[in-house]
């Protein structure tokens, strides 16, 4: 065995030290994970209840694109759930890459979509196959309050998958202008938690029912608005000054509302 082991040891050769790129890619990925955890740690200890919706029975979610009407369109257009003719995308579409910085870096292990998300977005008849979404192209985004959100590009449209299992999809042509958001609407009538993505250099502003406006912080392309009961409207302003406004998500459908939440 000693001779055999010597031979095996010899066979291992002298592989080069990891290239500088390998160090950089791995270090960056780890630093992102560390930063995400540190952010969550700060939030957990900061006294704010940013994850309030986790303590609620949230309805699985309201597919909500900033372009209001995407959900409604799903109902009236019979072919919206038909699979994309070309199948899943093999690479993120160029227009999406140009609009979202998160797609321009290398893909790392941490970007992998959770299995539940991959299943949800590839189920036949869902929006994922219709848009040619490919879970293998997913990228992880971390919102300013530390929540995870995945952008899953597709051939004609893309989806975001949220930390609590909800997802939202829309056409790429819409996403590159207006972004995409996901609203978790608690069935007890509490205010929704909104997580979304905005294109590079865009600003996100909310307007309350009293007319006051608030600039929403972005971390990369991601943002969150957590449980604001006064929220009335969302506005995305792109780098050219164009504005895309939409109403804040309303209450859940009556039949989904918790009986205990009626007032």
């Amino acid at each position: 065995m000693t001779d055999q082991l010597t031979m095996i040891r010899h066979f291992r050769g002298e592989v080069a030290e990891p290239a500088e790129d390998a160090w950089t890619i791995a270090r960056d990925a780890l630093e992102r994970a560390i930063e995400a955890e540190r952010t969550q740690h700060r939030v957990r200890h900061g006294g704010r209840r940013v994850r309030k919706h986790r303590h609620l029975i949230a309805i699985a979610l309201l597919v909500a694109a900033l372009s209001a009407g995407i959900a409604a369109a799903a109902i009236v257009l019979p072919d919206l759930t038909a699979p994309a003719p070309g199948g899943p995308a093999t690479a993120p579409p160029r227009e999406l890459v140009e609009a979202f910085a998160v797609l321009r870096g290398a893909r790392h292990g941490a970007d992998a979509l959770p299995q539940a998300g991959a299943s949800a977005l590839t189920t036949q008849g869902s929006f994922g196959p219709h848009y040619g979404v490919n879970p293998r192209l997913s990228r992880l985004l971390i919102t300013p309050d530390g929540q995870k959100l995945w952008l899953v590009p597709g051939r004609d449209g893309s989806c975001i998958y949220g930390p609590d299992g909800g997802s939202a999809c829309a056409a790429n042509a819409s996403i590159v202008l207006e972004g995409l958001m996901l609203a978790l609407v608690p069935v007890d009538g509490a205010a929704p938690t909104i997580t979304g993505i905005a294109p590079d250099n865009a600003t996100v502003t909310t307007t309350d029912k009293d007319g006051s406006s608030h600039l929403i912080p972005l971390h990369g392309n991601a943002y969150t608005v957590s449980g604001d009961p006064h929220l009335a409207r969302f506005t995305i302003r792109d780098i050219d000054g164009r504005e895309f406004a939409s109403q804040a998500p309303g209450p859940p459908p009556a039949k989904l509302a918790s009986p205990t939440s009626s007032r």
Partner: protein
Amino acid sequence: MGGVGTIETGPSTDARLVERTVDRPEEFSAIFERHFAAIHRFLARRVGNVRADDLAAQTFLTAFERRARFDPAADSARPWLFGIAVNLMHNDRRAERRLLRALMRLDATTERDPVGELELVPARLDASRDSARVASALLALDQDQRDVLLLHAWADLSYPEIASALEIPVGTVRSRLSRIRETLSTVLDEPSTPSEKEHS
């Protein structure tokens, strides 16, 4: 008599570092800097440099996410990290077999690197002379046996460390090595083929 304080003067052990990352996750970077090269080299030998880049990065991300499970009694994180790396590698079993098959075809006369696409260059030509036989021997082992053997031969882990990495009893490590010995004897002790003799 008053108590005697202790002052930590040397570098922190991995266990202490990992323990501290509970409150200070950024300290996990020290584990990365300490062990990344060894993990990457091991993976590069087994699946080639290209796959190693990705798998090595994933190894440390996985380790970071699972650091609460690290055994504080273990001084070094090496076995734990190698264990994670091996598990990740199993997700792409074909990569290693592809590399070994390529090495079996190693052309010793031209010193050409037949696995250039995998960016693995054998160290020396006299090693390449035996490459086909060794690659063939490694292919004759099953995945579990190969893990044990290569953690020992290439990662220089001790039997207890291999047991820890693969989460198997030390006795199993020994018995696997025993079976490996038999397999290697059969394959490596066979006379060289004529074509190999020409090269030798």
